[in-house]
């Protein structure tokens, strides 16, 4: 039996969006995952969003220069495609590593894969090691195939 008390229930929506709601809406818009919130200068938000994407790309190019060079003139386009599908993870090394893994293939040169692995080591990723011919190798699956790469050079 429904209550006969007709006084309005507390309704969060009646108070309008909270600061947390509004910040979340702006954050997703800047990340390119939603429409810009109303009331803002839409052109400026668009410029800020583009600047964020450029910052991610510049960081990836700096952290993984061999990966970036291996993509030639398509590097920027490849990163934009990656960034559209993957939100910023919170730090540039993790972002670059995810991008690097996404563009490495079975035919990637060992120097390119090695660069990704070295950044994984520097970033404290859990690694598997193997030993062969008295040398220590990092073993990882990148670009759809297993790799054994010496961190001391080719």
């Amino acid at each position, binding site marked *: 039996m429904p209550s006969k008390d007709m006084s309005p229930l507390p309704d969060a929506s009646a108070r309008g969006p*909270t*600061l*947390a*709601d*509004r*910040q*979340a*809406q*702006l*954050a*997703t818009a*800047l*990340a390119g*995952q939603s429409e810009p919130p109303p*009331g*803002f*200068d839409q052109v*400026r*938000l668009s*410029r*800020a969003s583009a*600047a*964020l994407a450029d*910052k*991610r790309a*510049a960081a990836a190019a*700096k952290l993984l220069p061999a990966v970036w060079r291996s993509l030639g003139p398509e590097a920027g386009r490849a990163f934009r495609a990656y960034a559209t599908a993957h*939100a*910023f*993870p*919170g*730090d*540039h090394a993790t972002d670059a590593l995810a991008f690097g893994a996404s563009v490495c293939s079975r035919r990637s040169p060992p120097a390119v894969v090695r660069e990704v692995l070295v950044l994984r080591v*520097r*970033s*404290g990723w859990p690694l598997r090691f193997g030993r062969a011919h008295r040398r220590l190798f990092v073993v990882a699956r990148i670009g759809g195939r297993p790799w054994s790469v010496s961190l001391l050079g080719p």
Partner: protein
Amino acid sequence: MSGSRLGLGIGWRPELALLCERRADLGFVEITVENFPEGTALPRSLRQLQERGVAVIPHGISLSLGGAEPVDQARIDRLAWMAERCAAPVASEHIAFVRAGGTEIGHLTPIPRTRASVEAVVANVRRVRETLGVPLALENIAALFEWPDAEMDESEFVRTILDESGALLLVDVSNLHANARNLGADTAALIAGLPLERIAYCHVGGGAERDGLYMDTHTDPVPPAAIALLRQLSAVARPPGAMLERDGNFPPDADTNRELDAIRDALEGHESVA
């Protein structure tokens, strides 16, 4: 800042380590906490600077003090640990948010100048101060846009946050310049309205015009207007210290040294010959 003089400083980066070692008049260096993996030793170059008496100030970029969500205790612990490890006189962060609702923005983003924002920042600063063993300074950021519903102007907003949180002020004069160019902010009024007696130190960084907007890149030369703002500030407030921020596209050391000379001269109230 309680009388302690920092003097001339620079944001320590591996690419600038040798310059820092050669620069005898450095009073402090600032390190970005997030650039130092947990559990690793401070680089030898930094330790040598410390032995020389150069203060090391940890600077956070990921606490999101302006976020409506409570700041992550693990990030506070990391800042506090770094401050203790460096025997830092002060630590610093920003009046900004960098994440919300599970989305990482990847950049320092402005917050609305409202009472709700003041309360959010003050609550977060209080959480930090419960763990941090040194004073915390809050930095003004550069923005390309503003929130639509400001309830107070910038100086009142900053002053209220500092009054209620007990934090010190880190004035980034280049960010003042950027906001004047991009948002029409009145820097003279802002400087006049800020609680200048709470200044811990100042930032000076480079930037460049891109498609009609001034971008605070830290990879381009310092604009003369930023040096002029530091000189203007020094004339009325005598900040305890001022430093150069350079994050990439590093020029020859001679160029960086000229920028440091200009910052030092502006801080001391002299006209630079550079």
